[in-house]
């Protein structure tokens, strides 16, 4: 039974996605702006079903439109660095830590060509619970048609 559960968890780690996207478009005709806040449990990032506050990207499941160029700015209020890795979109964004009261900031410009759900995760060691729960330190970038 334990083996079955382990296998089921493994299988759940594989959500099939068909992807094709570009992270650095040469031409942006209409530039949309999106800000994603990164907050730690101390900054009351997001309350989990366990009743505790956890690290979180806000929003963790942003919605984009296929073919539309979006400038995404990450604003990190946490004293620790984070990252957003979305291999399906070829994204590897290193988000610097806040320094005192000054949040860390980084911006990217993204044009996802193909609609779909692209899983992302924070690959920087942080809140272990949040790293394994969708909507906190992992999620999906949803690209609609």
């Amino acid at each position: 039974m334990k083996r079955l559960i382990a296998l089921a968890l493994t299988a759940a780690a594989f959500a099939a996605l068909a992807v094709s996207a570009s992270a650095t478009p040469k031409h942006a005709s209409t530039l949309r702006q999106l800000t994603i806040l990164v907050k730690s449990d101390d900054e009351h990032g997001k309350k989990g079903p366990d009743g505790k506050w956890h690290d979180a990207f806000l929003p963790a499941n942003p919605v984009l439109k296929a073919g539309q160029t979006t400038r995404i700015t990450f604003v990190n209020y946490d004293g620790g660095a984070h990252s957003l890795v979305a291999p399906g979109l070829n994204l590897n964004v290193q988000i610097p830590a806040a320094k005192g009261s000054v949040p860390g900031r980084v911006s990217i410009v993204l044009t996802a060509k193909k609609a779909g759900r692209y899983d992302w995760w924070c690959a920087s060691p942080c809140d272990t619970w949040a790293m394994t729960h969708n909507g906190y330190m992992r999620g999906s970038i949803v690209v609609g048609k």
Partner: protein
Amino acid sequence: MIAALVSAIALATSVGPGPVNASVPAGAYSVAFRLTPNLASRTGSISVSVTRRGRPVTGARVRVTVGMLDMQMGSFTLPLRERSAGTYGRMFPVVGMSGRWGFRVEVAPRGGRAFQVALADRMLG
């Protein structure tokens, strides 16, 4: 789909750490899987060569789904393009986290029955 994945991972071939060059049999087919440099923090190259009774299988549809085995995280699927007769590949993106990663290679030969093989890779940072 989940049942197929469970079956695939249960029969996975273990590879890594370091550059991967592994051959996995699948009935009359053989799949040669290559991944370099097989480091979580670096982009690399992935390629799959498919042969049937020693002859390259051209015109197949090949894709690879990758997911973390150590933590409940996301996954991604990479469609591979045929680069030379029977060899399919593309750039492999940064996954960011070292540990055990599962690779499910799906091959749909032209006019043939689709099949898959699975590998469990130990990837260093």
